[in-house]
């Protein structure tokens, strides 16, 4: 399954990197990727977001029910980690409530199609399946065309109360969240962009206004794909063999995001982008 994945992130302006509460993870061998956004109102939300993405990329579930069934083990890990800390009095009420995060995880599998030309053979194709809770989004693009947006499809669907997965939430409550699962078919050259809400909102708003956000993001990726994981942006949080951006300037993602923030088009929030080049 020849593909390249690139992860970028930047903390909310005014916050330090330690206060960043999104998370992303990838497992190229298994074709599994995930992004989560810890809810700022809850505590230890960054830890919960990290457990969710790592649990997904190292797990096997790619449909809603098996994924929900995998959550209690992660909830126990969160509880054990938090319980082990010597917490001050003011942390107790929010620890009892648990942490919350939005989540999007997807899995890619080879799904060859019959060769469209003359003669026998197959052409490469990929099947993706995604699980989502809340407003972390997946966009499937081909060139400048947006083929699929999931789970949100319009910029006016974003608000301050997205659906969330909680570290103390029961399975039934998670099951009741809407739009848990989707799938699609991709071909070589397609892109899958997964991102947390601020950037996802910007992408859809740009797209609706006739702009081409996909090309802007494309410029963050290295011009010629190299095998293995690439990396871009100062704040890359997936291991990068080179330790710096593969897209030229190591801080181009940071500069791009700061520019969007300056122009008032991007809400000041933690930003995470995971790009897959099929």
């Amino acid at each position, binding site marked *: 399954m020849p593909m390249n994945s690139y992860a970028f992130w930047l903390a*909310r302006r*005014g*916050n330090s990197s330690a*206060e960043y*509460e999104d998370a992303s993870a990838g497992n190229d061998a298994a074709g599994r990727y995930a992004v989560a956004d810890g809810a*700022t*109102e809850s*505590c*230890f939300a960054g830890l919960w977001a990290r457990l969710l993405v790592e649990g997904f990329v190292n797990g096997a579930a790619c449909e809603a029910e098996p994924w929900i069934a995998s959550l209690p083990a992660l909830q126990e890990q969160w509880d054990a980690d938090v319980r082990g*800390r010597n*917490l*001050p*009095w*003011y*942390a*107790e*009420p*929010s*620890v009892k409530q648990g942490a919350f995060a939005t989540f999007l995880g997807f899995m890619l599998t080879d799904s060859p199609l019959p060769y469209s030309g003359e003669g026998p053979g197959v052409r490469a194709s990929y099947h993706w399946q995604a699980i989502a809770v809340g407003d972390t989004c997946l966009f499937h693009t081909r060139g400048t065309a947006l083929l699929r947006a999931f789970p949100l499809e319009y910029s006016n669907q974003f608000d*301050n109360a997205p659906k969330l997965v909680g570290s103390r939430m029961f399975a039934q409550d998670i099951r009741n969240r809407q739009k848990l699962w989707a799938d699609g078919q991709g071909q070589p050259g397609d892109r899958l962009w997964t991102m947390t809400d601020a950037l996802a909102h910007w992408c859809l708003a740009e797209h609706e206004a006739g702009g081409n956000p996909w090309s802007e993001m494309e410029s963050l990726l290295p011009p010629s794909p190299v095998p293995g994981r690439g990396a871009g942006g100062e704040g890359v949080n997936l291991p990068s063999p080179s330790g710096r951006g593969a897209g030229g300037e190591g801080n181009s993602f940071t500069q791009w995001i700061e520019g969007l923030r300056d122009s008032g088009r991007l809400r*000041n*929030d933690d930003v995470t982008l995971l790009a897959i080049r099929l």
Partner: protein
Amino acid sequence: MSYTAEISRNNPTCFLFLVDQSGSMAEQFGGEAGRSKAQGVADAINRLLQTLVLRCAKGEYILDRYYIGVIGYGSEIRWGFPIEALAENVLQPVSAIGGNPLRIEERVKRMDDGAGGLIEQRIKFPVWFEPIAQGKTPMCAAFQAAHGLITDFVGQYPSCFPPIVINISDGAANDGHPGPMSDAIRSIASQDGNVLLLNAHVSARGERPILFPTHDGFLPDDFSKLLFYMSSPLPPAMLHQARILEATVEEGARGFAFNADLASVIMFLNIGTRVDNSAS
């Protein structure tokens, strides 16, 4: 528009409590047997401080969206909390308040068990402020002290949500007429509006509490009326919030409470803490 500034670490606001600690605060509180006005006010302030800290708590950390101070007035002017770690400045960042209670008490709270009964739960109740009831009522001197602190704060954070000064008293000032000094406090302004001066009259009288009145008609004595006229009219956002909590609040209401019971005092003090809910 005024009173709309985001309250964040970069642009904090300030709460300053002026607390009457005169001898008469030892009297019974609002018809509650066995409990002094001083104890009632101390409980109310401790609970409010707890609420303010929890609003800024983020796991193990506290985001400094507020500066909080107290000035007691009775036998002397007492600057700040009686806690060594908080002694250096009257106005302390909320993280310093949260990290340095005088002690943490365990109290029992009765809660709905969801099946029509009550269950008892042990909760932590941090204490910063103890009841004191000694001496006279130098309210003018307390206002003078507040004026200086608030002027400095607004100088440091000129675009802050306007500081909120909360004066809690049971009797008349005996160091002059507090009107001019309270006018001076209310006239201090950030770019987001004038300082809000709220007054709570805690009384031994058992009459029904009055919260955010629009006129002085139902107020029982001249001192209540004086405190009412010294109080800021509620700005639109606070008026809206007050109406959610208390449907009878009308346009033109002032930030004044008479004989408010403990719950109303807290409700009253909680107004005006609109906060940017993100981690800034």
